């Protein structure tokens, strides 16, 4: 049962027949892990906190720098030098005191995974490195957890939902690890805040739809081009020889 305070606070989304009280309760019972509290993690966590996801675990070992403030919209100049996950948790708790926000102030790793993933319903990848993404992809398959990937640099964004199953592609199916370092990132080629907001909006929408039992699409890579402001969808297929998701 929703309290009167919850009825009021979440009224505009409960009003939607695809959410309803049932969906709201599902959101409140959910535990979402957000890995990376930078340009994607800030808007994703704001949308999920304000929508009433019952428990958010925020993971980031980085400290806030002045050059982050152009796009990492939870942070202010006085937060510089502090841990991103800690500061974010403080702000999100102010935004929504009805939810629980947990902080992991270090980079995500296998050890944390073993400890935390058994309790998680959805993982959201807001990291800025491919190494971290390949790790999350492997863990998503190992723990059979949905993973919502997001990434953006320059004017370009990508997002993809991975729901491990014998029919669904994983990240490794599409981009097999080559061992060749990928040098381009936000530090080297720049990024516009609204491009991150668009990708983060898609990730948050996918999470809310998934948790409320609405239909979501696997086997699809969505690519956003901020210059033409168009999306391009690529239809994916699981690879029988994938070293991560196939036996």
């Amino acid at each position, binding site marked *: 049962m929703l309290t009167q305070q919850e009825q009021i606070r979440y009224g505009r989304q409960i009003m939607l027949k695809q959410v309803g009280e049932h969906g709201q309760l599902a959101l409140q019972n959910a535990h979402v892990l957000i890995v990376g509290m930078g340009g994607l993690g800030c808007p994703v966590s704001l949308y999920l906190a304000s929508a009433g996801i019952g428990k958010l675990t925020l993971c980031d070992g980085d400290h806030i720098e002045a050059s982050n403030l152009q796009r990492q919209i939870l942070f202010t100049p006085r937060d510089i030098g502090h841990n991103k996950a800690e500061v974010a948790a403080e702000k999100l708790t102010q935004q929504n005191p009805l939810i629980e926000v947990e902080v992991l102030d270090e980079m995500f790793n296998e050890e944390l995974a073993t400890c935390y993933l058994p309790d998680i319903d959805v993982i959201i990848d807001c990291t800025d490195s491919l190494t971290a993404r390949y790790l999350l992809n492997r863990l998503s398959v190992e723990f059979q957890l949905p993973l919502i990937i997001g990434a953006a640099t320059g004017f370009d964004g990508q997002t993809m939902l991975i729901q491990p199953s014998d029919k669904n592609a994983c990240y490794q199916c599409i981009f097999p690890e080559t061992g060749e370092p990928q040098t*381009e990132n936000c530090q080297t080629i720049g990024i516009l805040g609204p491009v991150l907001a668009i990708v983060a909006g898609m990730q948050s929408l996918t999470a809310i739809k998934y948790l409320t039992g609405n239909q979501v699409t696997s086997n699809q890579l969505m690519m956003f081009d901020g210059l033409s402001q168009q999306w391009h969808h690529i239809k994916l297929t699981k690879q029988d020889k994938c070293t991560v998701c196939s036996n």
Partner: protein
Amino acid sequence: MNIKINGEETKLPCDKPTVADALQWHLSALERKQSFAVAVNSSFIAKDNYTTTPLASNDCVDIFLPIQGG
């Protein structure tokens, strides 16, 4: 044969080109070693199938890289 690679009209200098020919034409040797993926008419093509996937006139080939950043 005329196809589109990443939206740009491209003339491939062969009669019966495959995805592998398009990549040979479009990417440098270094780029071919890095992580990338290919779609033909918005459907993903696995690496193992590059040499056996024929291209038809006006096919749209997209070559895209994993984005790193957030």
